[in-house]
C-alpha cells in the first residue's frame, strides 16, 4: 500500500482546499491515475478529476504530483514509493473542484494566435509539396497536446495572467514555420505583443515540463529573434522591400 495525499476543494463546502489521505495498493503497473481511480471506485466516489485516454495523448489528466506538473496517467506510483504521493491540481489555474482546474483562459487565448493554416493564392488540386526536411522545421511544435503542464510550470504566467503562454505561442510558431503557411504577418500583432513572446523571460521550465518534447521555450526565443529582425526591417527598409 502507498499513501496518496490528495487536494480536495468543494466549492460551497470548503473555503480553501484541504488535504485528504487515502491508502491505495502499490502495484508495479499502476500510474498515479490508477491510484485515483481506485479511490474513486472503492473508497470515495466524491473525488473529481479529469482523465480519458490513459495513454498520454488526450491531455486531460495533468496534475501536480509531488510538486511537479505531470500527466497522472504517465507517472507511476512506484516511482514515489514508499510515499506519500502528493496530488494537487495544476498550479496557476483557478480550481473548479478537487483536481479539476479551469482552463478557459487558454481556450480563449488559443484562437488569438490563429492556429490554422493561412495560405495566400491558389490551393493546389493535389497536395502541397512538403519535403520531410521542411516538415522537420515545425513538426516538434505540432506535437502539443494542450495538457497545460507548461502553463503550470511557468512563473511568468503565474504573475502575469495576460501572458499568452508557452503552448499558444508554440502553436502560432508551428504554423509560422510550416512551408504551406503565409500567415506570419497576421499572427505578428498578437505573438509579438507585450503579452506575447516578449513577456517570456526564459525560465525554460515549460520545456522541462512538456511531456511531448515540444520545447515551447525554444519556440518563443526563436520567435523573439524573428520578431526583432522583422521589426528592424520595418524600421530600416522602404515599404516595398519588406517581407
Amino acid at each position, binding site marked *: 500500500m502507498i499513501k496518496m495525499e490528495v487536494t480536495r476543494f*468543494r*466549492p*460551497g*463546502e470548503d473555503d480553501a482546499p484541504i488535504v485528504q489521505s487515502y491508502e491505495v495498493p502499490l502495484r508495479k*503497473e499502476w500510474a498515479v491515475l490508477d491510484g485515483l481511480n481506485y479511490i*474513486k*471506485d*472503492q473508497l*470515495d*466516489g*466524491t473525488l*473529481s*478529476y*479529469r*482523465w*480519458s*485516454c*490513459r*495513454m*498520454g*495523448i*488526450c*491531455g*486531460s489528466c495533468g496534475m501536480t504530483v509531488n510538486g511537479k506538473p505531470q500527466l497522472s496517467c*504517465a507517472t507511476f506510483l512506484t516511482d514515489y514509493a514508499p510515499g506519500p504521493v502528493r496530488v494537487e491540481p495544476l498550479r496557476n489555474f483557478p480550481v*473548479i*473542484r*478537487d483536481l*479539476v482546474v*479551469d*482552463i478557459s483562459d487558454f*481556450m480563449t487565448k*488559443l*484562437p488569438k494566435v*490563429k*492556429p*490554422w*493554416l493561412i*495560405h495566400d493564392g491558389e*490551393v*493546389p488540386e*493535389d*497536395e*502541397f*509539396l*512538403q*519535403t*520531410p526536411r521542411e*516538415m522537420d522545421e*515545425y513538426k516538434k511544435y*505540432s*506535437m*502539443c*497536446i*494542450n495538457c497545460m503542464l507548461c502553463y503550470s510550470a511557468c512563473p511568468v504566467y503565474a504573475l502575469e495572467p495576460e501572458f499568452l503562454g508557452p503552448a499558444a505561442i508554440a*502553436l502560432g510558431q508551428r*504554423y509560422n514555420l*510550416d512551408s*504551406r*503557411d503565409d500567415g506570419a504577418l497576421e499572427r505578428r500583432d498578437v505573438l509579438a505583443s507585450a503579452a506575447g513572446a516578449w513577456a517570456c523571460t526564459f525560465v525554460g521550465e515549460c520545456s522541462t515540463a512538456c511531456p511531448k518534447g515540444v520545447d515551447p521555450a525554444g519556440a518563443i526565443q526563436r520567435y523573439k529573434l524573428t520578431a526583432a529582425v522583422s521589426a528592424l526591417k520595418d524600421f530600416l527598409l522602404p515599404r516595398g522591400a519588406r517581407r
Partner: protein
Amino acid sequence: MTTFHNIVVVGGGGAGLRAATAIAEANPLLSVAIVSKVYPMRSHTVSAEGGAAAVIADGDSLDEHAYDTVSGGDWLVEQDAVEAFVEEAPRELLRLEHQGCPWSRKPDGRIAVRAFGGMKKKRTWFAADKTGFHMLHTLFQTALSYSDIVRYDEWFVTKLLIDEGRVHGVVAIELATGRVETIIANAVIMCTGGCGRVFPFTTNANIKTGDGMALAQRAGAPLKDMEFVQYHPTGLPFTGILITEATRAEGGWLLNKDGYRYLQDYDLGKPTPEPVLRSMELGPRDRLSQAFMHEHAKGRTIETPYGPIVHLDLRHLGAHVIDTKLPFVRELCSKYQNIDPVKELIPVRPVVHYMMGGIHTDINGATPVEGLYAAGEVACVSINGANRLGSNSLPELLVFGARAGEAAAEYVRSLRTGPRNAVYAQGNDEERRLRAELDQRRKGTERIADLRTEMQATMEEGAGIYRDGDSLEKAAVKLHELRERFDRAAIDDHSSTFNTELISLLELDFMLDIAQSIVACAGKRTESRGAHQRTDFPKRDDEHFLSHSLVHRSGEVEYLPVTITRWPPGERVYGR
C-alpha cells in the same frame, strides 16, 4: 434555461468537427453548436495511430479499395456506401492536408502511403504513428477559424427531445456548474464515437461509453449490427493500450511462446521475411484475433498476471525505422511496459477496439428519426460490415461527417415550424429527473464501479471473440439482473460542481442499454461472420443472414437486407 440553434452536433471528435464545418460551409447563416462532454481536442480520435486509407498511389484504384473493404467486412456491407466512401476519401484527406495536417511525406514532398491489414495495395496515409492526434488537432484548430460555431465544452447530453417523430434538440448538463439546459435545434447530429468501455479490456478511452448510441435508441432510432465488436490483435496487457497495426505493416511479426509465426497455421499465408499485403500479419483483425484464441487453446500462448499473451517482434526493423515510422509505439512501450521494442519483444493480446455496429443510418447519415443524423463510430452506415479494416475508420469520420453535416443543413432549410410546448415540457421533465438522480440516490446500496465491473466481465465472458447460444443466454440474464440492481445504485456525491460520479452513473445507464443490445443481436444471429463467431454455428449463412440486424430499445430485433451493387458474396481469401 433554454437556448436555440439550427443544428446541434453532439460530440467534438473527428466526425463532429467535420460535420460542424460542413454545415458552416453549406450555409453560413445557420447557427451550429458542438456539445461535447470533453474539450474537443480530448476526443478519442486523438488516440488513433496507424493511418487513414484513401486511394492516391499510382497503380491503386477505387475498385480495389472498395473490394478490400467489402470482403474485409465479410459482405455485410452497404456497397453503394462503400463506393461513395472510397471515392470521397481522397478528397477529404487532401482537404485536411490543405488545412495543415502533417501527413508523412516521401523524399520528393508527396504524400507517403503505407501497407495496412486486409488492404491489397499500399494506400494508408499516415502522420508517423500519431495520425488521429494530428487529424484531430488539425480539425479542431481549423474549426477555431469558424468563429460562428458555438461550443459547449464539457457538457453532457442526457436526452434527445422528440416530438411528433421529429428531433427538436437535446437536454444537456454543464459539468462545471451542474446547470441543466434545454438546447432546442431543428436537427441533431450524433458524433459521440464508440462504446468500448462496455468491455473490461479495451483500447478505448474512459469517455467511450456509447452515450450517443443509447440516446438515439431511446429516441426511437434502432441500432444496427451491434453484435460485431472488433478485437484488435495487439494491445498491451494490463493497460489495453493499442500497439498500431502499422507495426506489422512496417514488417513486425507475431510470435507464439515458441517464437513461431503462428498465423501460418490459420489459412493466412506463408511466412516471408518481408511483409506481403493481405497475408500473415497483414491479414484482417478478426482473423488475427481468432487465431490468437486458437493458439491459446493449444497452450501456445504465454500466461501473465494480465492474461495470456503472444509477442510482437519489431527488433529486425531496427532503430531507424522504429524512430521515424513508429516513434509513439516506442514511447508507449517504454513508458507503459518498460521495454524497448528495438531490443525486446512486445507482449500483446487481443483487445476490444471498435464497434462495427451503431446507429442505423443511410448513406447520408440520416437515421429513421426525422432530423436525427449520425456519423463516425457511433453510426453504422455500414461500410465496415462484420469487420472493419484498419485505417478505414479515420476517412469514414470525414466522409460521413461531411455528408451528415450537409444533409442536416439541407434538411433544416425546408423547416418552418418551431417546437411545440410539449418539447419544452420534456426539457423540464428531464431537468427534474436529473435533480432527482442527484438527490434520491443517497439511499442506494449498489456501487457504480461494482455494477460496471460486473457488466464488463459479463460481456467478455458471454460475448467475447467466440460466443455461443449458452454464453449469450447467461449474459442476457446477468445483464437483466444488473439493470434491476442499477435502480438501487448509490452516489456519494451530491454536489452540482463537476460531479463526475453523476456522469458515471448516467454513462453506466447508457452502457447497460448498449450491452443488452449487443447480446440481443449476437443471440439472434445464428451464424458466424467476421467478428461475430458462434462456436455453435461456425459457418457463414448467407441464405438467412446476409442482412443487418436492427435492435430497438424493447430488445426486438429485425433484419434488413444488405445492398449489393457489384461484388456478390464470395469467400474471404487471405494469403493465397
